[in-house]
């Protein structure tokens, strides 16, 4: 009765994950698992995260061994009720087909698209169902769409999700349409026009939050809801030691020390994460873009634009999420959200709360977007 058997498989986090290493099981055989319960910790070459149960059930078998590496969609464990025999579980495990590396990704077509807006080539990704108002997620200063590694696929189960590399960031062209939040917000609006997206749920992290806020203020009818994660624009203060340090860092050692400020747990900053950032920072034109934008938006401990303080009861519904240990923008800014906003300050997370506490952040966003 294999229909009564539920496999636990290696998830695919982000667009480039091929395999993950199980670092630890968090539950024993015989545990009654509920939806959303963390089952095991998995390390990828980018970051580590907990695998959560997508379905409820009784854990009968732990297949994956701690310390071993498994392909995406490989069988890690088996859930089944007690009336399913061990022989049936053995048969299920034996019959489970180990996925072929890469085969699935080629079928899925290209992970990214490119669009040229105002003469600037921009990379974006669209995931999830064709129908429905999409959630557009904007990354922060120096970031890219990879910052939504643990969010994009989980959220795309419920609604369409669009992420992009802002101009001068990630794999978009190293060229700025403007050095202001308002200018970047106009650029995002033009980009959405060009790819045929009218109404959106918009969200952003850090600088991307300020851009999303400005978008919601400029286009209230176009904006179904607003999600702000450790957002800029909700107060004056910012740790410009971080932004200046990010601009100035020219090697791995310097960059690692700076980027560690983004996380409550600095051990999450892997070599691969620093390598990728350094590769980005070394592209021709990028240092100039970061310097121009960073110094225009953030200087001497202050943000130059605070669109979040203009939000009011007439603005689209707002969700504010913050990592309690944010070392870049103070979590106290969450209290500047307009009355009626949903506010969640998450313990044990820093500025990259959507990476550090992905499951909690995803649940909050799903609920917010789902109800507006």
């Amino acid at each position, binding site marked *: 009765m294999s229909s009564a058997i539920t496999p636990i498989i290696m998830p695919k986090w982000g667009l480039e994950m091929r395999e993950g290493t199980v670092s630890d099981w968090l539950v024993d055989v015989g545990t009654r698992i509920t939806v959303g319960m963390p089952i095991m910790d998995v390390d990828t070459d980018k970051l580590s995260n907990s695998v959560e149960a997508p379905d409820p059930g009784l854990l009968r078998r732990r297949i994956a061994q701690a310390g071993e590496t498994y392909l995406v969609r490989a069988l890690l464990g088996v859930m089944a009720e007690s009336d399913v025999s061990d022989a049936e579980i053995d048969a299920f495990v034996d019959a489970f087909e180990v996925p072929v590396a890469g085969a699935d990704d080629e079928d899925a077509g290209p992970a990214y698209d490119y669009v040229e807006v105002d003469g600037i080539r921009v990379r974006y990704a669209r995931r999830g169902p064709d129908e429905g108002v999409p959630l557009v997620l904007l990354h922060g200063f120096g970031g890219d769409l990879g910052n939504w590694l643990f969010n994009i696929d989980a959220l795309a189960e419920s609604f369409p999700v669009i992420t992009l590399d802002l101009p001068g960031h990630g794999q978009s062209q190293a060229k700025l349409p403007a050095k202001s939040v308002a200018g970047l917000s106009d650029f995002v609006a033009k980009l959405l026009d060009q790819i045929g997206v009218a109404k959106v749920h918009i969200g952003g992290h850090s600088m991307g939050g300020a851009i999303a806020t400005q978008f919601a203020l400029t286009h209230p009818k176009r904006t179904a809801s607003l999600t702000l994660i450790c957002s800029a624009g909700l107060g004056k203060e910012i740790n410009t030691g971080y932004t200046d340090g990010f601009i100035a860092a020219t*090697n791995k050692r310097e960059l690692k020390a700076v980027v560690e400020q983004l996380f409550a747990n600095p051990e999450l900053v892997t070599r691969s994460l620093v390598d990728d950032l350094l*590769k980005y920072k070394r*592209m021709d034109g990028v240092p100039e873009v970061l310097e121009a934008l960073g110094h225009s938006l953030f200087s001497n401990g202050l943000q130059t634009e605070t669109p979040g303080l203009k939000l009011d009861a007439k603005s689209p519904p707002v969700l504010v999420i913050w990592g309690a240990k944010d070392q870049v923008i103070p979590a106290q800014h969450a209290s500047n959200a307009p009355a009626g906003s949903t506010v969640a300050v998450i313990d044990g997370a820093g500025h990259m709360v959507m990476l550090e506490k992905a499951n909690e952040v995803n649940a909050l966003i799903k609920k917010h977007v789902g109800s507006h």
Partner: protein
Amino acid sequence: MARKISMKQAINEALDLEMARDPLVICMGEDIVGGAGGNGEMDAWGGVLGVTKGLYAKHGDRLMDTPLSESAYIGAAIGAAACGYRPVAELMFIDFMGVCFDQIYNQAAKFKYMFGGKAETPVVIRAMVGAGFRAAAQHSQMLTPLFTHIPGLKVVCPSTPYDTKGLLIQSIRDNDPVIFCEHKNLYGFEGEVPEGSYAIPFGEANIVREGKHVTIVTYGLMVHRSLEAAAELAKEGIEVEIVDLRTLSPLDMDTVLDSVTKTGRLVCVDEASPRCSIAADISAQVVQHAFGALKAGIEMVTPPHVPVPFSPVLEDLYIPSGAQIAIAVRKTLQGGRK
């Protein structure tokens, strides 16, 4: 956008982008276009292994086929560099360096110093290095230590397409003479490379694998052999850290010393002949600067001190293998001081 390309394509792309960016960048070499004086179609060759193929169509006469006279055209490239151009000369096999060595080590390397800093020589000499190509003793050498011995020369030997593109762009933009060593057995090796331009600074080693038990310091093709060894050793619970030097002059000893301080054990892997090699240089510097950190004697994995054999069986035995590297790592773990 990053996509997978070969090391050969990465070289072509770096030359293409820099020629488009800077009109002073020129390329010269034997058959790099269509073969000098031949009646054949221009751009038919693109060098002996087709590395520069397609560039003539885009950049025209800024790519020049030269006579089969290394002493003449390497000298011409160095002269053009001293007069303000940024020439990239393709020497085919590094083994041919001998006939133009005065131009390189007595002229190019010395101009800046002997003219009180008033002259610069921004020349890049690209050459294929390494064994495994069934090309016998005169086309297979890893002569990197000959060039690291000369002050005034910069020496690069990348292991991946990403590093190749970024380091070649840096070589062209650099104001000093650069010997750019391309391992011919890595030409087909593919990796993710961004489409745009980027430069990787000289003197920055890359830790390609992290580990806490033993440090391997290496470069070029041997990075890949070391990775094979590390994967094998990981099954035995041995965690190897691999430092890819990337540039041999300047040399990033800080990264080497940091790693050895962490692990206490060092294996140097070098495809060059063992005497006065990069491996010998690294070993000596580690003993000089981090003797206290060493928990065991340093191991070196190199070919034997003989010319590269023509017999394929012997050539395969000549090149250090992953298995040999693994043996050296185990040996340094067995040895030790109390």
